[in-house]
């Protein structure tokens, strides 16, 4: 199938992108605004959690209850997420309901009611969710290691900090919205079944008059400790581990993806084979690539019983380090097949495509075609991957553990 990308820029700079899909009745859209966690003033970590809930408590002429009722009546599956850099809200729905849904989302994003009496429950929910992390050590260890790995303020936990959430006020959050919802930097994407001119006309009417606020990405400070441990009398030791790699803009991005895939792409991958299959050390072990605009990592998680925690960490780190010693042609081939197959599977999901299109534009300033990605995956060779691994030998790890006792790096 020939790929098509629709694109348009509103007069205020907001970018509209669309990727049509054949044979579907649904559509997904995605708004990305530069209102992530690193952008907030000091002492405001977690504000994004509150804001993404508060926005849906009434907008335009509709109070909280009416708004949710209408979203539900339209059968909209909604989502929102916060990273260090961005806040995104997205929706998947039957294509026929698109105009009504977009109109509602325009209200939610540009004229939310942000009432005082609705602020408190949003803040309380954020506090509860943060407290709930203590019962979810697998998730919590990822936040712990992220906090040590990335330089400040890109290391802030998206769930926030207890003191920050407890001191947060409605006014502070309103100011963050006012400043960070910079529509000149907003990226809107849509995938599935849609009418592009109609979408553009609707967004033009609702967003084009809203100007930019001059948001800039904050400067990066210093990173945290190499090892952190949090005591917890659970059944398992949870290990989070991160190591630095180039960002998605780097020309060796596909070499990184191949390396991650050899390490953790499937059940024949190094981590699964060595840690779980041969030694039975873990049920869950895996690594993935994650990137911000200027910083990127391979992030790894393993959960094991306390007696086996040290061996699990040692074997895991060894797998990273041994990669530079070489790999078989079959391993590289499986990695390439796995990456291409993932790509095609994602192309069948309008939600995955809408997020992918917006993400590409944010990181790269353009949207890669699936064809282009396929070619780049195929162009990774034994020598290009070895050259990358020579330059990036995975010598440096940031580690966090949650469990009964610490382990040795």
């Amino acid at each position, binding site marked *: 199938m020939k790929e098509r990308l629709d694109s348009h820029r509103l007069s205020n700079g907001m970018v509209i992108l669309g990727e049509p899909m054949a044979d579907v009745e649904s559509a997904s859209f995605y708004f990305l605004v530069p209102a992530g966690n690193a952008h907030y003033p000091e002492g405001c970590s977690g504000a994004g959690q509150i804001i993404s809930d508060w926005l849906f408590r009434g907008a335009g002429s509709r109070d909280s209850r009416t708004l949710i009722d209408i979203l539900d009546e339209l*059968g909209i599956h909604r989502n929102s997420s916060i990273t260090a850099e961005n806040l995104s809200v997205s929706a*998947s729905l039957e294509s026929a309901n698109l105009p009504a849904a977009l109109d509602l989302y325009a209200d939610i994003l540009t004229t939310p009611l942000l009432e005082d009496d609705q602020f408190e429950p949003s803040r309380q929910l954020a506090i509860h969710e943060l407290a709930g992390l203590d019962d*979810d050590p697998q998730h919590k260890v990822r936040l712990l290691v992220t906090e040590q790995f990335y330089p400040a303020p890109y290391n802030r936990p998206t769930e926030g900090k207890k003191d920050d959430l407890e001191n947060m006020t409605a006014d502070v959050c309103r100011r963050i919205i006012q400043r960070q919802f910079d529509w000149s930097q907003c990226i809107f994407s849509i995938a599935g079944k849609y009418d592009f001119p109609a979408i553009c006309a609707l967004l033009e009417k609702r967003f084009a008059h809203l100007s930019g606020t001059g948001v800039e990405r904050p400067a990066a400070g210093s990173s945290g400790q190499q090892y952190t441990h949090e005591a917890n009398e659970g059944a398992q030791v949870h290990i989070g581990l991160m190591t630095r790699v180039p960002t998605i803009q780097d020309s060796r991005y596909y070499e990184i993806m191949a390396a991650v895939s050899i390490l953790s792409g499937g059940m024949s991958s190094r981590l699964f*084979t060595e840690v779980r299959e041969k030694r039975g050390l873990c049920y869950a072990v895996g690594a993935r690539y994650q990137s911000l605009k200027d910083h990127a990592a391979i992030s790894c998680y393993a959960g094991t019983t306390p007696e086996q925690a040290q061996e699990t960490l040692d074997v895991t780190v060894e797998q990273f380090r041994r990669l530079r010693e070489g790999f078989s042609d079959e391993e590289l081939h499986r990695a390439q097949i796995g990456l291409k197959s993932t790509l095609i*599977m994602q192309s069948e999901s309008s939600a995955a495509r809408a997020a992918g299109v917006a993400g590409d534009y944010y990181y790269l300033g353009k949207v890669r075609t699936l064809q282009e990605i396929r070619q780049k995956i195929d162009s990774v060779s034994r020598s290009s991957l070895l050259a990358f691994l020579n330059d990036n030998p995975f010598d440096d790890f940031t580690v966090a553990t949650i469990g009964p006792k610490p382990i040795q790096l």
Partner: protein
Amino acid sequence: MIFKHRQLENGLTIIGENHPHAQTTAMGFFVRTGSRDETPEISGVSHFLEHMIFKGTDTLNWQQVNEAFDGIGAKFNAFTAEENTVYYAAVLPEFLPDVARLWSQLMRPSLREDDFNIEKNVILQEIAMYKDMPQFDVLDQARALHFGSHPCGNSTLGTEQTIGDLKVEQMRDYFSRRYAPNNLVAACCGNLDFDRFCELIESICGHWKPAQADRSLSVFEGTRQRKHIQKETLARHHICLISPMVSMQDPRRFAASLLGMIIGDDSGSRYFWSLVDPAIAEAASMQAETMDGIGAMYSYICCEPAAAPKVADIIKGIFSDLSRNGIQEKELTAAKNKVLSAMTLKSEQPMGRIFGLGFNWVYSRLYRTLADDIAAVRAITVDDVNQLIAEFPPGLYSCLSMGPDAQENPLF
């Protein structure tokens, strides 16, 4: 969209739904076996066996199996529940024969003792992992409480004790009874050639011998017991309520799933407005789980320990209001729209569609198109749901909670 099915002489059923424009194809084996088919001494064997399937056959070792899946870029996995063990994969259409051949071969595993001993550790790790996840632990223990001695209360994972004591011979014996061809359905969905698929399955599985693979079905109303477990290491109060509901074979299952959505969807439901929106609980959900000849409604609520009494009062209030006044037309319309749009979105990918397709056949020997399911949901009336509430009052539940505090008297 064209549906075809065929039954081999040994009882193995093959079903396929062709979507000629799909870019991928999903395929899976549905084995009608799970924890409810286990006796206490082999508790956890179905799930352990699911892991052992990946350890290979007489001609394939575990490494070759893993490499074979990864070599065709398959997105594959398996899961074990109370009454099904499902092995599935999505691939590009040209790899359907490869993945179908692989799964078919794996349905006759070697179950080698050395693999068994290594994998036992992985299972013990998995049991430890779920112990650190109270949101799962509370559900598992609530199920045991609600179903009492009924086999639907059996734990899928088993315990450290039962897994530790399990012998490979016991697993082989269980396998020979439960993985008989007459207890298996091979399903595929997406861009495919059904006749070629059937030929392939028959060439590998056609000679397998059928066996007795019954399941005792008995209706059970639940124990309606209450239990609180104090765990000082927990930060939050986790609550699970279970009440009886219709079975998967009952046409009212669509009304049951709408009722679950009206009470406990994560947006706009009764739980949402009275618990989550005012920030009394951070999570509150209810859903229908319709099973073989039996069914249940499951609620899960998570809140700060001090809020638990308030949560209990609110939930009791919701249930008594539903029993007194029933649901409103508006709630039903919203629930329908949400269910319909979820069904549509899910079925746009073969990997989303394969489960509905397979389970319909496993439970009812029925093919239902997406359009059939949509029509069934659309046809539900307020009266249908209210009759369900009258017959299965949500207030007649079993309740298990877990939290850092002690509790003298049950809150719920």
